């Protein structure tokens, strides 16, 4: 399981935790998040998410 971080605002997506409040279940891989998803904090689209593995 990996952790990704939004470079614009520092928002953390942890695959293990998912994002239950947005309907993304725990253990959802980054690759399985819909392409139209956007960072909940800053609105950057997934397509340009320059996320880093931390």
């Amino acid at each position, binding site marked *: 399981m990996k952790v990704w971080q939004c*470079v*614009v*605002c*520092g928002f953390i997506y942890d695959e293990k935790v998912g994002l239950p*409040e947005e309907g993304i279940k725990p253990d959802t891989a980054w690759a399985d998040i819909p392409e139209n998803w956007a960072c*909940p*904090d800053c*609105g950057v689209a997934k397509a*340009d998410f*320059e996320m880093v593995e931390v």
Partner: protein
Amino acid sequence: MEPIIVIGSGLAGYSVIRELRKLDREVPVMLLSRDSGDYYSKPMLSNAFAQGKGAAALVQTSVVEMAKQLGITVRSHTEVHGIDVAAKRLTTTQGEPRYSRLVLAIGADPIRIPLQGDAADAVMSVNDIADYAHLREAMQGAKRIAIMGGGLIGCEFANDWAAAGFIVSVIDPGSYPLASLMPQQAGSQLRAPLAAIGVDWRFGTSVSRVDSAATGYTLTLADGSQLQADIVLSAIGLRPRIALAQTAGLAVNRGIKVDTHLRSSDPAIFALGDCAEIEGRVQPFVLPIMHAARALAKTLAGEDTAVVFPAMPVVVKTPTHPVAVLPVARDAVGVWQTLASGNGIKMAFLDAADRISGFVLTGEFAAERSEMTKRVGTPLAATGKADNIVAAESS
């Protein structure tokens, strides 16, 4: 063809270029900045300590790499002194480049109040990564930190450092935290949880003197009390940088005045980010910048586009007691209603037609942010939600 020139390498400047490059790889773009031009995330400055990150670790992409990725010319450490709007030419510390269109993304200055005392100049503020590097140096060996201002930035730093074991005092002339963003019942929720990790709140007073002491500084407050600190940080607000635009004859108010197309009173000059006042509102936050950058990129690429802002909640990074808020304009007509309370509070701002037009979620309710954002614009009752109205307060 003269390039599009962007002044400022913060989130606003880089975002508009990044978005433009998705639409047009060819149009020449020049970025001018008085700082290094390295790309970093400013919001991370106020939660970097707990993550064990120093200033250098916050730089995500070097200026050289940014220039390469985006296919642009960058002149860093270059300050722009003037804009000749008739000739479409800039005066800078390094040459006089001409532009076809100009984007002002020059940010804001921290507001400083005049203080008495022999150490008044030692007061720091943190609005960019260079400030942060200074601060981190000063923190070596420091134990006590005094923060002037209990707004978003003051509260975030207080949480970050108190959690790391520093003794943190927050001094604010108001009566509760985050007062410019939310009503008292909501802002007050932060008091006890942060006090529990060691934050010493001093409301209803302000700092009047800062003097050197045997170690660190002695602060004298307006109420006559004194406190000791090794570091004094001022976080009392930001003032958009308007001087450059004003001198060039552009319309300014609190910020550089632009319309929904981010266009200033000169049709070839645009502004966004912390320096801009878009249709009367200055919104110094990430989400408005991203939306403005996307619209402006389209306009620059030839498709005139107005920015449409959705509901854009602001997350206050106080992990000890998280807060999400959709602030309402200062002159908004309506009432704040408490919908639930417990370990935190959930409040909604209802406009004259009883529609939700703002909200605050703290503590256990902060996780309901996206759900609450979807309800914005709908009447409280029509959502089928069994909201228990606990109390109403008119604003």
